[in-house]
């Protein structure tokens, strides 16, 4: 009810957060932005108790619950499956629900600071909450669904284990945008399809049951398609599912180059 008043005087008093035994105090530095009050994003620091076994998401939920309810971020399953809580943690894109505090602790006797910013390259709507629409637009553009022509088979579409293996890696994508927003080309030029869209095109291009490879390859052969990839490997490093993203993009490039799927 007093949302406006609360945001005007942002409290950083974290004394209400329960500090279980064994917890240590860490500084969480968040790049905050409220479109109704701020013209520019600014950093806000919170000293909060944390257990080494906590995940970064736990700290964010504690800050939102006990310190400042206006803190905005996405999270849903909190178990690394839904892909909602992608954010830039200590300078790299990660899912907040998959990063343990013990892996971020500073060398002994030093204060641990965890820096959290929204993922880059997408419009920030509030705090860590970005507009994902450009990302999904690129995803939809590559036709990420089974395309077949001719009569429907009367039974299942059979596929050998070896054929399944070809695109196994790219089926793991959860569309969290960690890869796309880690790409320097995507930051500089939002019209690039981005790694995630290419990964999801790869998933169907190399599927023996699918007949739409040609259409997708045409789309990705565009100036804003796979050729924008500069193989910086940021996407592969960022993927919380361990997908070899750059490898998938290279496979699409080679398929285009040698007209072979």
């Amino acid at each position, binding site marked *: 009810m007093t949302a406006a008043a609360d945001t005007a005087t942002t409290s950083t008093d974290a004394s209400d957060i329960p500090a279980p035994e064994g917890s240590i105090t860490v500084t969480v530095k968040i790049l905050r932005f409220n479109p109704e009050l701020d013209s520019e994003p600014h950093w806000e620091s919170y000293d909060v108790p944390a257990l080494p076994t906590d995940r970064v998401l736990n700290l964010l939920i504690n800050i939102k619950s006990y310190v400042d309810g206006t803190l905005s971020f996405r999270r849903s399953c909190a178990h690394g499956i839904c892909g909602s809580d992608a954010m830039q943690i200590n300078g790299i894109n990660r899912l907040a629900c998959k990063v343990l505090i013990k892996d971020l602790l500073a060398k002994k006797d030093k204060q641990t600071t965890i820096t959290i910013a929204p993922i*880059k390259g997408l419009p920030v709507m509030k705090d860590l909450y970005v507009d994902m629409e450009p990302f999904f637009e690129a995803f939809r553009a590559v036709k990420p669904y089974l395309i077949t022509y001719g009569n429907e088979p009367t039974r299942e579409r059979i596929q050998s284990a070896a054929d399944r293996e070809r695109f196994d890696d790219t089926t793991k994508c959860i569309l969290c945008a960690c890869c796309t927003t*880690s790409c320097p080309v995507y930051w500089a030029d*939002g019209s690039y399809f981005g790694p995630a869209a290419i990964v999801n095109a790869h998933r169907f291009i190399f599927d023996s049951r699918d007949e739409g490879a040609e259409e997708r390859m045409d789309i990705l052969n565009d100036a804003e398609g796979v050729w924008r990839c500069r*193989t910086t490997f*940021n996407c592969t*490093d960022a993927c919380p599912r361990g997908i*070899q993203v750059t490898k998938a993009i*290279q496979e699409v490039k080679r398929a285009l180059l040698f007209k072979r799927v």
Partner: protein
Amino acid sequence: MSITASPPDRIAGASRRSGTLYIGDPGMWSWVAHRITGVLTFFFLFVHVLDTALVRVSPEVYDEVINTYKTPFVGLLEVGLVGAVLYHALNGIRVMLVDFWGKGPRYQRPMLWAIVGVWLLVMIPSAVIMFTHIFGGSPA
């Protein structure tokens, strides 16, 4: 009492934020270095084409210009040029392997450390030889 969403133009104002350094994969920094060494080599080639073209204008002027290069400062630039060309060439091979070798993406990091190793192996003796030329006062 709900707070309505901001109008789209307001949201657009905050888009494409900057200010945080992305600590990317070593592959990103190899790409940054590839760009920088590429641009530096281009600038060298630009000057090189110009000074060599001077021969056709006047051999005397060409000699005069080339003589101005025989200073320790230009010598340092030459060491830098060797380093830039060498890195650009080695990393170019790495990028080609990433592009055309099926296992390239998997071995991109070992390949990066390998080219850095080769770069050091070649650069250290080259720099020693070049510095002795520059500061040893050997006849041109």
